[in-house]
């Protein structure tokens, strides 16, 4: 540290020489990253595109280049059902996680300001749910949704005198059960992002609003929400992609059933590849997944304020 401060004093003198020096290439420093991502990410990714034009299976090696896989995979009648399930699951999860995340963040902030008891406990509990591995989360919720008397939710309902719900066996109910479990695991992320972003809002804005006589509701609508715009959009991109890729939490909770009621695109892709051994069709579905995430990200990105350094 001492060397550094001494040298800092002499910086102005020699600084020009240091700046004018030919700047070395960052390539050696980036090489490990490029190698790892290239070999284990980019190369397989490019191969997905190649596979889509073949009829390759998980077992055989006889590859023929053909457009047939793309046509048959995309025209399968079940695909529409799968996409609909994926849409319902993703949209409800994202909206609920964004809404509750913001709501809890604001309540926690308010409670901190008023020095209410328990806001830290609530924040930490939500975060603990977030750390639970997806596969374990699915198993935990399966126990909660269990329709036997020891099921954790029906027990709770019985306590307050509400009749039992068929959480996982009713095809209309099961989607909401999956969404609830996903919201349980995912809300903490939105909460943290919203909390940090709300804390960063300039307090002067609120003081000015108070002088003008704005009520809490008006402060929320005219100050908090507009100020959070960027954070909300970025958060939406992140949680949409996370939700779209959700796979482990569903495979261990419902396995996609009953019937196909909760078979989302990622689970369907998995089944096509590793149950039907149809690698080529899986590649087509993978590309479809990729296109959907990229498309959604671009749509959200259009709403981002422009020209902001980030």
């Amino acid at each position, binding site marked *: 540290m001492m060397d*550094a401060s*001494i*040298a800092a004093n*002499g*910086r102005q003198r020699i600084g020009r020489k240091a700046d004018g020096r030919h*700047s*070395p290439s*960052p390539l*050696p*420093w*980036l090489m*490990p*990253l490029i190698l790892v991502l290239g070999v*284990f*990410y980019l190369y*397989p990714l490019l191969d*997905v595109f190649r596979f889509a034009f073949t009829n390759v299976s998980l077992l055989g090696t006889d590859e023929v280049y053909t457009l047939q896989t793309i046509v048959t995979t995309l025209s399968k009648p079940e695909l529409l059902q799968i996409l609909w399930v994926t849409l319902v699951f993703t949209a409800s999860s994202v909206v609920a996680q964004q809404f509750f995340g913001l709501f*809890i963040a604001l*309540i926690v902030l308010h*409670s901190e300001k*008023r020095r*209410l008891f328990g*806001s830290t406990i*609530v924040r*930490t*509990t*939500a*975060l*603990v749910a977030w750390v*639970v*591995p*997806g596969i*374990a989360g699915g*198993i935990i919720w399966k*126990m*909660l949704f269990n329709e036997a008397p*020891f099921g*954790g939710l029906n*027990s709770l309902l*019985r306590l307050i005198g509400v009749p039992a719900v068929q959480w996982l066996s009713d095809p209309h109910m099961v989607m909401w059960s999956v969404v609830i479990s996903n919201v349980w695991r995912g809300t903490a992320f939105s909460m*943290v992002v919203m*909390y940090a972003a709300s804390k960063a809002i300039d307090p002067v804005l609120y003081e000015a609003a108070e002088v003008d006589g704005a009520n809490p509701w008006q402060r929320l609508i005219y100050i908090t929400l507009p100020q959070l715009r960027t954070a909300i959009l*970025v958060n939406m991109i*992140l949680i949409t*992609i996370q939700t*779209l*890729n959700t796979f*482990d939490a569903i*495979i*261990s909770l419902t396995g996609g059933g009953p019937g196909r009621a909760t078979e989302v695109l*990622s689970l369907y*892709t*998995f089944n096509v*590849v590793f149950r039907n051994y149809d*690698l080529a069709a*899986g590649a087509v579905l993978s*590309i479809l*997944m*990729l296109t959907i*995430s990229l498309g959604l990200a671009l749509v959200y990105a259009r709403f981002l304020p422009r020209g902001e350094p980030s």
Partner: protein
Amino acid sequence: MRPLRQDRIGDALSYLFLAITFLFFAWPLLWLLSLALRTRKEIFLGVSRLIPKAPTLENFGAILSSDKFAGYLWNALILSSCSAIGCLIVALPAAYAFSRFPFRGKGTWMMVLLAFQMISPLVIMVPLYRYMAALHLTDSHFGATMVYIALAVPMVTWILKGSIDGIPKSLDEAAVIDGCGHFSVFWRIILPLSAPGIASAFIISVIAGWSQFLVPFLLISKESLMPIGVGIFQYAGTQNDSSLQLLAAACLVSVVPAIVAFLALQRLILGAMTEGAVKG
């Protein structure tokens, strides 16, 4: 007196919402604990109460003493810590370069890195499975570790870049003038000063590795090599309602290490995470 009453109503509502939120997030874990402490008889009777009548630790004993589960836990520990170390080795120099070297298209490259995060691991697992089989890297911890690293490294690089950005540039400029090369600047200044960022990146990748399911599920079929995520999924498939107490105990055992690691370093992790998320 009006504002005071308004405040009181606000406080009461806040308490109500805090309580509901707490219940929502805590209930699943409390229920899991409740199931894990029950005897087989109590599960079998199908009684619903939160606090078991005759709480017992024997389920945990049964799980922890089985070779299978000890192996699962050990494998998960090996995989997640090795991949976290690997992640740091790959990401640290890159983060340093992104933070300190002037080069063209830096912003674009950072975004490209982030875009990797948008690709579902499932997409690359399809061809990767075949490569790994061809390279004889299936059923190997090394192969799985490399894939874990590739999946986590974009985010870790972002986090580390954020923490290196926080180190004043004048420090390394001064060291350069003192005659340090880039490597010794990196080694003597950047590494020690970004220790908190490195620690949180390490813990985040350990937790991410701990919750990996897809990669080991596909690449590892030998039971003796499986990490806990895959092990517990297989185990859950073989259980029925009357052995729920064992599954609950197993589930808790798989969840607790991640929770403990997180709670111990909560402050560090949240700082690193929000920095990445808000900036990204």
